[in-house]
């Protein structure tokens, strides 16, 4: 089953996102990383931990403790194993500065988290529809 990696530090937002997926009938396993370091360890592993199986899509918040979202995105793109991994940036910020920088760093999509939960549900449904069902991922490198 295709996994979703959600990188988010705000517990409210984690619960709301999971709720939104649930309401949208998205039954994929959602793995939550609560900061940038945790997300990168999951994807690339470290001295003690081998990398875990790659998710189908990464949902990435920009404001994170320790390593922020931009740096996580940069390292995902710098690493051979995750160079083509779909990354959707989820953020509260509607600032043009963030938008430009995100796409420049190699994000596949950018979604502003709306305050209105109804709209948030729509966004969640669209993420599921597009990234989990329609989009066929490129094969992992080396295979």
């Amino acid at each position, binding site marked *: 089953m295709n996994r979703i990696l959600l990188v988010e530090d705000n517990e409210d*937002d984690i619960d709301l996102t999971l709720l939104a997926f649930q309401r949208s009938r998205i039954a994929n396993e959602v793995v939550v990383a609560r900061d940038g370091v945790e997300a990168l360890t999951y994807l690339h592993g470290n001295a003690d931990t081998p990398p875990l199986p790659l998710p189908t899509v990464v949902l990435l918040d920009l404001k994170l403790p320790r390593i922020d979202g931009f740096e996580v995105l940069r390292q995902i793109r710098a690493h051979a194993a995750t160079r083509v991994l779909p990354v959707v940036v989820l953020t509260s910020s509607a600032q043009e500065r963030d938008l430009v920088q995100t796409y420049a760093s190699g994000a596949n999509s950018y979604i502003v988290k709306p305050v209105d939960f109804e709209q948030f549900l729509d966004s969640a449904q669209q993420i599921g529809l597009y990234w989990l069902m329609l989009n066929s991922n490129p094969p992992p490198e080396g295979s």
Partner: protein
Amino acid sequence: MCATAVVAASVVVLVGWAIDNLLLKRAFLGSVMVRPNAAVALGFAGLSVLLIRHRFGRLLGIVPLVIGALTTAEYLYRFDFGIDDLLFHGDPGVPMRMSVRAAIASACAGVAIVARHRAISQFFSGIVGFIGTLSTVAYLYGAEFLPHASVTPIAFATAILILLWSIAFIAATSGHGPVTETFLREDQWGRTTRQLSLVALIVPALFGALCLFETKEELFDLPFAVALITTATSFTLIGTIVRYTADLRVEDERRTAAEEASRAADALYRTIVETSQEGICVVDASRHFTFVNQHLAAMLGYSPAEMIGMHSDEIVHPDDRVGVAERAAARRPAGRTRTELRLLRRDGSIVHAISAATLVPATANTPEFVLATLSDITDRVAAEAALRASEARFRSLYEANLVGVAFVNIDRTEAATVTVTDANDAFRQMFEIEANELPGFAWSARNTTDGAATDQGAMWHLRETGRCAPFEKDFLRRDGSRFAAIVAMATIDEETTVAFVIDVSEKVEARRTLERAHEILSTRLAALEGGDGSLDVRELDALAARLAEANEELETFSYSVSHDLRAPLRAIDGFSRELQTGHADALDAQGQKYLARIRAATQRMSQLIDDLLSLSRLSRKPMNRIPVDVTAMAGEVANEVRERSGSNVTFSIEPGLTTSADPHLLRVVFENLIGNAVKFSSKRDDARVEIFSVDGDGTFGVRDNGAGFDSRYAVKIFAPFQRLHTTEYEGTGIGLALVQRIVRRHGGMIRAESQPGDGATFFFTLSPTAEVTP
């Protein structure tokens, strides 16, 4: 006449013979009879001279030729042909044969008549003359003929007739032989020949007669007489010869000198032509060169020898050839032409030249030809072209009207009056003067009070250096208002100075505003810091650093506001909704209502955050003013607002409105003003919104016929989050604050007029260019 006399005498003699009259036989002269054959021969010879013009006359010469020749042969061979007494028989003892001399003369006369060759004819007639003269002179000298058996003495009459005949023949054939031709010439040679011949004829004859006379008187003997004749004749002839030789020598020297002079003149002309610094050539009737001087050949890159025989068209530019041919035709009556044309060098390059050609008519010795002088004026043409180009350059400078250009005359007295003699359009527009006011417009008349002093300073520079560096000066317009200009001048000549004037009033105005602002700033800073008001660079740097720091903090603040204030709101809204949907049965109707209120408040809070952010963003965004079609923009916004609101409002937008503004910001202005107008008039059925300009001075108005408001609050409505209608109409209260900020950034003003229930009108202006930082 001589010939007639000869013929007549011959007839008389023959008649004498017929009637046997001795007197007639002697022709009344001397003692010897003229023999019949001699008379016949002379008669025919005379007749032939009379008829010399006819062919028949010449044939008559055969008679004396035959008679003379046969008689001479009889003498030579002592033989008798029997011709002597063919006509008449003489008395016995009297020989009938004509004399030897008469026979020879007769034969010679015949040859002279018959001969075709003139020299031969003359030679033989000369012999005849000699015999006639000899015999006549001998008779005159009283020579006596010794009686001889077989030789007949010549009759005196025969001698005279022979002489007469020779004179008649020469006269009849005058100029037809080399001797006579020389004799009869009209020039000096003819005269000299005649004079010398006369001397040669008369002198010996006279001395001969003298000696004969002296000898007969027995004053001296014959040998002395011969010596006397010889010596006297020789001396006389020598004297004569010397005299004429001297004449000849003088004549020869004169001619030699003349030839020398002519040669020298020729050499001089040749040198003049060859060393001339003009091209000179001679062209024949078919326009080929027959002479080319060194300069012309060098001018065209040939040697003179190479050009001889070339056609003149070969050195003329093809475009000018027709002209040359036409002029050659036109030259015919007038004789001279002077034209400007282009010549071709051997290498194909062009020489500009002036050609002066003269048609020299044909003479007896030379055919008609054209003498042409060609002057190289390439340098002059190039100089003229350069001058024209230079003039065109300066003219374009003058007529471009980028700066005011005036030619002025400066009165060099203390008054330093500057009078404009000519000026371009830019200058005239600047000073608001008409073309007919020039020349004579006194620029000093437009001086401000301190203008004259400035002018005098400029005059001093002009006098000293011929120019004055650009300086700033105020002038008065026609209506007395001032304008600032930059003036620079340069002296062209004694009379004229050129002045360049640029109107810089706008720049000066801007600079003065800046100076005033600086002054105010300095004063305020001084008041703040208690200092002396002067700002040094270090303080300014510190100020700028503090400003940048503050901006940075503001940036960080608004960034965190957008993220951090939103997150809790999202949680509130999200969980409230979850309560509403997932846990609906745990709440009663009142609880549901409260949850809806919570969610509405959350949305409003979110909207407030967004507006606050856009307000702060506006201050930092750089502005880009360009010409904007206001009518089109207002129309687009109106359509969008109508669609969004679903209202049936009527729009009236004045056509042709334009301004200079940042289009994105101006659009925000219209979105808010039109949005408000529609919103507040939405409750009316005949809702109407007008967009218009006021007096064309850059003021725009947006009017509605909606709810309106109390004018007392007209100022308050532009403050952020200030709302006059709390519940009836939705909105955050940030829109008009935003509009005011944008209008102020464009250097403009906004105000509102309204009465409650009577609609509202918003007026705003945008200053033409200035941008003001809020």
